[in-house]
């Protein structure tokens, strides 16, 4: 018996996760995440009224009540925005609070009725998956499966609607009907999730898997699949945890599972992830420090009248950029490994290849200074700091273009020679 109950919970929760994840992608991309929240809260009075009218706690009538109330709430939001000067976020807030307030009043009233069978409606607030029966799961599967099927059938149209509504309309797509369809599909997700997660947290099953999936892919069809997988998996895992550990609420645990995936995705996803950005930044920083050190070595040789055979001591190199000894040691090791410098006891000296490399950096620096001074007519004491950055960023092509543009100048604005480009 217990096993059957657990199976129902896991099935119901993963079903909700799959449908919510897939449809949530459209809500996310159309910036309608909060619309889902409002619809969910709007469903509560529908549930209560359905019970008051039918006196029956079967899933069919209660979920039908939720469906109707959810659609009314969504239409009210659209209507308020279209008819008045109230903006969408305000309309969403109003509908959400009014419907939810009404729902709570009805719920309290129902619980004080002397009928005896009214207990359990409050499970729609936060969900109570443990009480899911096989018949509930069947209803959920029917509704969710239909929603998913519709979403797959009209995928192309819904994608165009989400990307470029006006173009879709110019092409003759019935955009308003499609928007209504999408809203109804969101309501269906809400209805599917009412018993498992409850009205308060359903929005998380819509937006969290979708937001996580967006991190991993640049293709909408794949995003839908990934979101459905994340939603389904966190539903199953969350339900299993809450079944195995006593006194664990199902809905909130599912939400926490999905949120963990989201946090992980924000951190670790390729391209969009924070970790990737951090690593890329560190790599760029290291490259800049290496190029700076090579350039410093070159400048010292230039000061000796073009003699690069002497090693430059570590304290001198530390002084020129305020670096610590271990930084110099680290940089020296890495550059020596690439054959660009030789590190001896008395300091660092450029190799042949290192000299060519450094020349290119210096060339970029001085050509950019010349460009700023001549073309933008900046005074020569204003151009150095800018060139310090650009020497690391400009591509070789861009630099040669500048060189041609300026007519192959030989000296920079400070009167120092611009090294010739040499093939590496």
């Amino acid at each position, binding site marked *: 018996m217990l096993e059957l109950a657990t199976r129902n919970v896991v099935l119901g929760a993963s079903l909700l996760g799959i449908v919510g994840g897939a449809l949530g992608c459209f809500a996310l991309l159309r910036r309608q995440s909060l619309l889902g929240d409002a619809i969910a809260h709007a469903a509560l009075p529908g549930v209560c009224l359905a019970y008051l009218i039918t006196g029956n706690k079967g899933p069919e009538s209660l979920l039908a009540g939720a469906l109707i109330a959810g659609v009314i709430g969504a239409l009210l939001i659209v209507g308020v925005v279209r008819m008045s000067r109230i903006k969408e976020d305000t309309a969403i807030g109003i509908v959400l609070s009014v419907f939810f307030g009404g729902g709570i009043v009805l719920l309290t009233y129902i619980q004080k009725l002397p009928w005896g069978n009214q207990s359990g409606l409050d499970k729609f607030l936060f969900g109570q998956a443990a009480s899911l029966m096989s018949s509930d799961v069947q209803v959920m599967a029917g509704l969710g499966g239909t929603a998913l099927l519709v979403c797959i059938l*009209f995928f*192309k149209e819904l994608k165009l609607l989400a*990307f470029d509504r006006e*173009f879709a*309309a*110019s*092409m003759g797509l019935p955009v308003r009907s499609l928007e209504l369809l999408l809203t109804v599909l969101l309501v269906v997700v809400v209805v599917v999730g009412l018993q498992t997660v409850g009205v308060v947290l359903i929005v998380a099953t819509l937006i969290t898997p979708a937001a996580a999936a967006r991190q991993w892919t640049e*293709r909408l069809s794949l*995003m839908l699949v990934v979101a459905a997988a994340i939603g389904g998996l966190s539903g199953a895992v969350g339900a299993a945890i809450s079944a195995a550990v006593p006194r664990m609420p199902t809905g909130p645990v599912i939400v926490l599972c999905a949120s963990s995936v989201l946090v992980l995705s924000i951190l670790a996803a390729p391209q969009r992830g924070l970790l990737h950005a951090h690593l890329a930044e560190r790599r760029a920083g290291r490259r800049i420090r290496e190029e700076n050190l090579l350039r410093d070595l070159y400048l010292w040789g230039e000061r000796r009248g073009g003699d690069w055979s002497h090693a430059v001591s570590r304290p001198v190199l530390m002084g020129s950029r305020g670096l610590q000894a271990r930084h110099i040691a680290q940089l020296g090791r890495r550059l020596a490994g690439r054959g660009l410098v030789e590190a001896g006891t008395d300091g660092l000296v450029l190799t042949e290849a290192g000299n060519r490399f450094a020349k290119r950096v210096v060339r970029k620096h001085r050509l950019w200074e010349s460009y700023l001074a001549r073309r933008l007519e900046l005074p020569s004491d204003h151009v150095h700091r800018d060139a310090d950055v650009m020497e690391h960023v400009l591509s070789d092509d861009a630099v040669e273009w500048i060189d041609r543009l300026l007519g192959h100048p030989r000296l920079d604005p400070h009167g120092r020679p611009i090294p010739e480009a040499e093939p590496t």
Partner: protein
Amino acid sequence: MTSLPESAALPSPAVEFHDITAAYRTQPVLWDIDLVIPTGQLVAIVGPNGAGKSTLLKVALGLVRPLTGWVEIFGEPFETRRSWVGYVPQRESVDWDFPTSALDVVTMGLYGQLGWLKRPGRREHERALACLDRVGIADLARRQISQLSGGQQQRVFLARALAQDSRLYMMDEPFAGVDATTERAILELLQELRSLGRTVIAVHHDLQTVGEYFDHVVLLNLRLVAAGPIASAFTHENLTRTYGGRLTALTQATEALLRSRVPPSESIRGPERR
């Protein structure tokens, strides 16, 4: 590609605006526009900010419903001529961080011909790729659209319109904020379209290039100031009338209308709608 009949066989003119007055949201932005756009020409719509240039396009495309008047596309209402018309919206009108590729966006131009429930397949992708090639960025087909430069994004939009294979193209500022290479590519494309007998109506901001790029000009500032071939209509006097004098009376009328809270359909000869 579907072959089109010779331009001589096409009914002319391309677009006729009959007595169009249109309000966008609550603000009336077009008054009594009577305008004929000839077939097979490159037509610029020119006027200051807020003059109603985009709205005029949107009225013709059925995206904004006029309060009065009607539009004919090649002699028929827009609904029956929809497949003859291609649209290039303003580049800023969409979110370019959308999870999709350049090729995918261009394929969207084929959705209208494809019909409901059918998925774009290899044939559609090949056609879309050919359109990307015509705007010179076939090599970027698989790129995510946020990775494209502004000029490349504009070319993706143009390729999408090409995929629609239309007789008439409406473009909302195709030259806005593009690099010099893209500007040349777009210009060549427009000339190619003209040589194929297509009509292009483009909202254009750069007055210096109007005479060079276009054959026909529409000068607009809430009302139609002038329209005709460049030589006769793009005159200093007409430009002064378009950009210079403030239309205080018209602006005041607009504000009075808004304050009066008369339903817009009643306020501007509503019942005469055809």
